[in-house]
């Protein structure tokens, strides 16, 4: 289960976990930050590509963009095309997303 992340102070971290856990968490956090940044850049590029498609078509909002070929957070895994005008899917039981990186559609349920 994903806890709602509260900001931890330096004191909380030092006193709240042992050194090994802190080391592992730091390594994971560094790698995750890089992955998150790459993901943001990928989405920015996707937005550019979709805009270019609509420019070629000469019309916005009409092209039936295909759904991602693999499961991705925020897309209906059963849809063939992107559902326009519909909000991103949220899994049942999770709180509503208030900002980027907050709990949202779980595309990783297939994970081991």
């Amino acid at each position, binding site marked *: 289960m994903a806890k709602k992340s509260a900001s931890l102070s330096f004191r909380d971290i030092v006193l709240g976990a042992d050194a090994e856990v802190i080391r592992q968490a730091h390594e994971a956090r560094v790698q995750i930050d890089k992955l998150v940044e790459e*993901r943001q850049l990928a989405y920015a590029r996707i*937005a550019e*590509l979709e805009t*270019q498609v609509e420019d070629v*078509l000469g019309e916005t909002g009409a092209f039936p963009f295909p759904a991602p*070929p*693999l499961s991705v957070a925020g897309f209906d895994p059963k849809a063939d095309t992107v559902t326009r005008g519909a909000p991103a899917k949220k899994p049942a039981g999770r709180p509503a997303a208030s900002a980027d990186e907050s709990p949202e*559609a779980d595309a990783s349920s297939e994970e081991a």
Partner: protein
Amino acid sequence: MPAESQIRINTLLLEREALFVRIHEIERAASTLLREPYPFTRPPLPSDQRGKRKPTSRSTHASGKDKLRKLEPGETAYRVTYRQLGQTRTETHDSPDALRTLLASQSAQLHVLAIETLDARGEVTATLHLDASNPR
């Protein structure tokens, strides 16, 4: 749609698909590092937006087929006048198929103004479609 445009769109879609594959891999890697599903949210994309369609385009398409009768004896071609990206263009075709595609492709950027039939001298013999709301 011109072949060049279709090729361009396909190229863009291929790159888009590859990026989604990479995003899938990233999300899985992040969840592996976190040892539980990572709570990603998806940023908004242009494909989330519904565009405004001209309500007349569908009715035009529906009735366009009826209007595109075959050329009768004495008629040699269709002449279509349309407005695209602010410019008015006129084309001559001997097959109604291209005109049906044009009618079906109408949008905010493309609007068919008139379809007429011509005789061998290039004179109009009949008007099959005329958009009175958009003078040529």
